[in-house]
């Protein structure tokens, strides 16, 4: 990835007017270098103010910085420049969901699904739409069970933030389900000041699934099954979930590692059932 950034930086240095600032900004964003990604993108947009993909990238940087309203405005700009831009509608749907604007979220996510080319699917959007409808107490999209697609039974209205509450055994444990972009699908992470930090944590973890997959494939180790890291006060365990998502479990340092693994398995099972509409 460092090589890619170097190559793109060189290309941009050779031709500052090129549109290579978009892949460069995206690579920097994925590396977590948000300040640099923002700088590159803003400079690029000064030269290409009508480039939808540039504004789309800027919106995703704002999401990573947890500036959701700015992200929403930027995607709104993308839609003005390029009506029907799928990524913008998808992003606006996720931001609306995070801001608890459920009818708007449903509208944007439905539009994003409808805008996909015939025969293409977006599992993340389909799951998010089902969650939004469920949270509103509306019937979720139901498809043929034989196809293996999402089937949500009626009466499953449930606040996704509490999806793992009964799986976890004490207040020091918390779990999050993230989509492939690090956006929160379910669960919560409440900080010491009572604020839900799930969005910030999710943003910092975007790209982990992809990097883990690339590392284990490069080494021919098979598909990765878990990442566990220890901090001064906690143990964090992560596991891949459906649709390139990520399940994150945090427990206190005092929790035995064997129990952490068992809790991770239980949360993963709950997440899979929920995503499949069976919870």
């Amino acid at each position, binding site marked *: *990835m*460092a*090589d890619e*950034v170097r190559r793109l930086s060189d290309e941009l240095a050779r031709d500052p007017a090129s549109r290579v600032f978009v892949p460069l900004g995206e690579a920097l964003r994925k*590396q*977590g270098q948000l300040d640099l990604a923002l700088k590159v993108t803003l400079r690029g947009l000064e030269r290409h103010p009508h480039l939808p993909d540039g504004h789309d990238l800027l919106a995703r940087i704002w999401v990573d910085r947890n500036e959701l309203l700015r992200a929403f405005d930027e995607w709104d700009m993308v839609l003005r420049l390029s009506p029907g831009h799928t990524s913008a509608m998808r992003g606006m749907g996720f931001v609306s969901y995070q801001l608890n604007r459920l009818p708007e979220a449903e509208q944007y996510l439905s539009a994003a699904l409808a805008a996909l080319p015939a025969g293409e699917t977006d599992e993340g959007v389909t799951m998010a739409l089902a969650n939004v409808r469920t949270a509103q107490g509306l019937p979720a999209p139901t498809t043929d069970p034989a196809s293996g697609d999402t089937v949500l039974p009626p009466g499953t209205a449930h606040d996704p933030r509490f999806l793992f509450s009964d799986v976890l055994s004490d207040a020091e444990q918390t779990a999050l389900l993230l989509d492939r972009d690090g956006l929160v699908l379910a669960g919560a*992470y409440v*900080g*010491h000041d009572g604020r839900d*930090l799930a969005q*910030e*944590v999710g*943003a*910092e*973890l975007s*790209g*982990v699934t992809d*990097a*883990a997959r*690339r*590392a*284990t494939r*490069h*080494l*021919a*180790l*098979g*598909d*990765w*099954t*878990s*990442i*566990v*890291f*220890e*901090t*001064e*006060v*906690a143990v*964090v365990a992560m596991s891949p979930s459906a649709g390139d998502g990520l399940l*994150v479990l*945090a427990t206190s340092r005092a929790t035995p590692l064997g129990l952490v693994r068992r809790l991770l398995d239980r949360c993963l099972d709950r997440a899979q059932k929920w995503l499949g509409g069976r919870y």
Partner: protein
Amino acid sequence: MASPFATVLDSLIRQRGVTAAMVVSERDGIAIDANLQIGQSGDRVAALAAFLFRKARLSARAAGMGEVSFLQLEAPAGRICAVGGGSLVLVVVAESTVNVGLIRVELLRGVDALRHAGGVESDR
């Protein structure tokens, strides 16, 4: 002349089941020194491992959990373990049957040497 990390890397690669040991810059993922089995290329793994460690550190910071000490990625045929020492990350690739407890201890031992040898706390 041997690099300042040679002793740390040598002690890690001697552990049963360890196939690679590397010192990597966390910021840009560039391998600074490595001890690899013949035929291995460590650059890509170094970059990806550093990326994962950086992500873990940033998410822990966002969650107010303090500094990350040890990270382990598991896959059916092996694992990647890492510890951070200032701006450097010490990375080990090992077989799945390796004694992780032992590797963890060796890695954490190596962190101090890493800090003294150049893992200066900077630009974090």
